[in-house]
């Protein structure tokens, strides 16, 4: 228990560092946000100066940082210059879109990679072992934006089974009443199965694209970890004692192999959050990643800052969760 508390406390300096780096990076970005407003030709130098003052950009850097920190503590991430909305509002609208997609992709990846990795470990050198290696290496070699385009071409243009890649829902459908922000869940809550199917259909291609990329680390770790456990002495003892193959694999081997797999899952999940930038772009998905890229291109500080902060925050939370889960699965790890 003290181990978990200590682990929680150890995240604080990292979190502070993340805030500091985010602040500094967006300050060295070229492009004065005040000049952004000045693209309106009627604005004079005095007006620009006024805008700069209202944004607090005339103050020295340390003071700007304190103001920024103060805003953060009140849950204020600033305003997006290009949409004119509060960054927090933009995120509240977009984060569920990214989260829904990432979760689905994550579950697809786990559902495929664990059985594949375990099967490969049970028969090393067999056809399935080679197949798992090729799939895993191919998966990590596919640029997500190319995989996405290939999937669109085959399933939308050639076969016509997938919907047009234009976001979360067909434009003729109404989005469900907002409860969680996840369309599939909200559609289920509203009891609208047709809407659920439509939302799921839009998600399948982008989710598969992301899942393909996550397959590699998970399959590799599942295989390596299973192989190691299967070679250990307690498995030999279990075999010698005449336990059924099923019981040995599922109860004894898998449970002991789970530890490094869970750690890899945590890493993969946070990695997917960063990688979905490209997938969202290809599928016109209205998520936070696409928003962050647009902000970078428009030299819009605040949303970029918010994105990096939220992603790094999620990364830290996922790492903490992984550590806690690992400690719960295996008490030896928390010592």
């Amino acid at each position, binding site marked *: 228990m003290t181990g978990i508390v200590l682990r929680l406390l150890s995240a604080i300096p990292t979190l502070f560092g993340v805030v500091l780096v985010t602040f500094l990076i967006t300050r060295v970005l070229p492009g004065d946000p005040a000049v952004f407003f000045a693209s309106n030709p009627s604005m004079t130098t005095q007006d620009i100066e006024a805008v700069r003052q209202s944004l607090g950009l005339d103050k020295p850097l340390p003071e700007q940082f304190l103001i920024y920190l103060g805003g953060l503590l009140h849950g204020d991430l600033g305003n997006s210059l290009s949409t004119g909305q509060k960054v927090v509002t933009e995120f509240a609208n977009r984060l569920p879109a990214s989260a829904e997609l990432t979760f689905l992709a994550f579950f697809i990846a786990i559902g495929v990679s664990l059985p594949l990795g375990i099967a490969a470990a049970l028969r090393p050198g067999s056809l399935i072992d080679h197949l798992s290696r090729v799939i895993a290496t191919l998966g990590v070699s596919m640029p997500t*934006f*190319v995989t996405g385009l290939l999937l669109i071409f085959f399933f939308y243009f050639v076969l016509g089974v997938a919907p047009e890649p234009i976001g979360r829902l067909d434009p003729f459908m109404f989005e469900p009443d907002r409860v969680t922000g996840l369309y599939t869940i909200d559609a289920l809550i509203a009891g609208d199965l047709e809407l659920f199917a439509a939302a799921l259909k839009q998600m399948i291609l982008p989710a598969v694209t992301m899942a393909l990329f996550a397959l590699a680390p998970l399959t590799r770790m599942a295989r390596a970890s299973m192989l190691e456990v299967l070679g250990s002495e307690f498995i030999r003892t279990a075999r010698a004692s005449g336990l059924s193959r099923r019981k040995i694999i599922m109860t004894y081997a898998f449970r002991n192999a789970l530890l490094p797999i869970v750690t890899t899952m945590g890493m993969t999940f946070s990695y997917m959050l960063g*990688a979905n*930038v*490209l997938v969202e*772009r290809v599928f016109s998905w209205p998520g936070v990643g696409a928003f962050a890229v647009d902000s970078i291109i428009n030299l819009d500080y605040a949303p970029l800052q918010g994105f*990096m902060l939220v*992603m790094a925050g999620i990364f830290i939370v996922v790492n903490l969760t992984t550590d806690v889960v690992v400690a719960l699965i295996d008490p030896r790890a928390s010592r």
Partner: protein
Amino acid sequence: MSASAMRERIQVVRHVVLGNPLNIVAFGLFLLILLVAILAPSLVPHDPLKTNPAHTLQGPSAEFWFGTDQLGRDIFARVMIATRLDLMIAFGAVTLSCLVGSIIGAMIGYWGGFWDGAVSRMVDVLMAFPLFVLALAMVAALGNTVANVVYATAVVNLPFYIRLARNEMRVRRGLGYVEAARVGGSGDWRILTRFLIPNMAAPLVIQASVNLGWAVLNAAGLSFLGLGVRAPTPEWGIMVAEGARFISSGQWWVAVFPGLALLIAVFVFNLMGDALRDILDPRMRT
């Protein structure tokens, strides 16, 4: 390295290369890619930059193997020419981060103390960011050039090398042979350069070779989003981005061929990384 150790190493190489047919394919393709990167300008049948309004968006044919794009340029020529630029970005970035990262990591690992703590904290912070977006922001901040893509890719990879070199160093600096060298009168510098760094080379080279594929993907991803390399320069990421809008209307070849080139290059690099790992460090074989 003694003659018998050399013979043993060669046997391992032979075992790894011949033991897995995939490795032979990987080595062959790797050579082919290198050849294309070097010879492409004298191999391509058409000028990769020459536009031709008479043949826009034509499918693959005997004249244009990979078809033509929206400006009538030959996609085959563009894909081939792009190889050199994409490889140079990746090799440049990986070399830079491997060199700088392992020097920093080796130093903080060897001497420890304040800098070890400070740099390790910074590495933790850097690793908490979504790396691709960090690279994106850096290219936007430094300016939209190819050199900045190399620097940005190198910086986001630094933490891995720093961490690896530091941990290797911490494990090794207490080992017997280091003690022996110190007793024998070697100074810090000599111990570092003669004994420790050569022994750390294998894991670093493995990391670098695994990293190469990722660096290609990262650079192509940046230019796909319109950062870094600029049109009309032939580069795989840009070409895929340009072809993306024709995918939904069926002109698949504009995006698919550069995409496949990218995929094959990264796939080959990853296979090579695996093979190299098997050769250099059989214990890490998975």
